[in-house]
């Protein structure tokens, strides 16, 4: 590779046509309350992991819906499944089940548990 003193920046465009949204489809089918999320961030505000790390359940939900699965894979393992997010959700979304289903979907796709 030629040395030019710079590299090609990666695009930050979200391409819904090429993104794999099968994980989101798997969750939508089994946990319909996922559709009720208004992305208020109550879950992230109460999250113990979120207070100690960069983990954000709100961000995770958005990334799952967009099909940006690589980033979901990186952070979903940080969730301790304590369920506080489910208790505070103003829309009654079963957030804990969403994380469980996402992990299961990744296990089915990748062949191993996260």
């Amino acid at each position, binding site marked *: *590779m*030629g040395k*030019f003193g*710079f*590299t*090609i*920046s990666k695009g930050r465009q979200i391409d819904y046509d090429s993104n794999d949204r099968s994980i989101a489809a798997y969750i939508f089918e089994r946990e319909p309350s996922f559709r009720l999320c208004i992305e208020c961030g109550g879950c992230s505000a109460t999250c113990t992991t979120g207070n100690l790390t960069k983990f954000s359940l709100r961000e995770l939900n958005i990334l799952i819906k967009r099909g940006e699965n690589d980033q979901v894979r990186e952070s979903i393992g940080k969730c301790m499944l304590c369920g506080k997010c489910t208790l505070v959700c103003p829309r009654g979304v079963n957030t804990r089940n969403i994380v469980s289903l996402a992990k299961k979907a990744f296990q089915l796709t990748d062949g191993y548990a996260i």
Partner: protein
Amino acid sequence: MNIEGKKAIWKDYQKEIADDKYYYVRSCVRQNFFPGSETAFLKIMREELKKDVYEHPCHTSCSGIGYHSDIVPVETTMTIVARQFAIMTEAGYENLLPSCITSFGLYTEILDTWHHFPEIEEKIRVQLKKATGREFNKPKNLAHASDVIYKFRKEIAAKAKFKLINKNTGEPLKVVDHIGCHYAKMFPSKGVGGAEYPFVLTGMIEEWGGQIIDYPERRHCCGFGFRQYLVQANRGFSIACSKEKFESMKPYKPDMIITNCPGCPMFLDRWQYVINEMEGKRYGQNGEGIPVFTYEEVAGLVLGYNPWDLGLQMHQTDCEPVLDKIGIEYSPEDKYNTKINVEYSKNHNLINV
């Protein structure tokens, strides 16, 4: 795509382009990037179309490159532009004809500013008088050089020796048009076809036998963006923009790209070479790059000019595949020879050789 709908919209965005007696101002960067283009333009205007195009030896850069790079303050730029107008007025011309898209955008922007803020115009008039003793009239007509070629596209087609048709298949060449951002994105009403459907290059290509490709990133910037390129640390953004366009146009199998801006042919041409060096990717057919032309070069080729007189040897992505498709004869031995038999320095790692 609804072609009829687009054509109807294009009709609403026509601009007035002067017929004759042009005052020509050159581009500061273009003469380094593709030096044959402006020469070809003057030859076409003066010898083929018999138009009066005057060029004064004392005109300068419009300083737009410094203005858009956040180096030259706008009042300084306005005074420099006022001096260009003063030289035009002294020469007895009223129709300004810039070669550069950024100059065109800058002149448009300044004239519009003066229209809305006459006190700024007065201030600039005083500054110019103090600095140079000159006075000026504002141009009556402002048209970019590509507007003028667009206006006379039918006359050029009537004199054409070649058409943009693949001689082997009889099919029109698939052409990607790329309009400079400063042409119509700043002032849509000042460009032929506006910002959404600029027709200036499309009109030329369709008149000369080619077929325009409408692809998703057609209106995307080439990536030059001034500071995006001029600051080395930002060049990754510049090349990423060009790559976005190449990725988007590749499925439509374009034969060539035509541009009307000084920066766009430079970056669409050179970045193909850099992407090839960095990632080994090429975007044309059969592992080739996509040759990039200025509109003057295409007009010159259509009129049967020698490709090496048009400066096509200065391209990093070689143009020979397009010349072969059209059936233009050229001498490979003369590619780097000057008319005084001194050889040019050759580019290395060319694409398409």
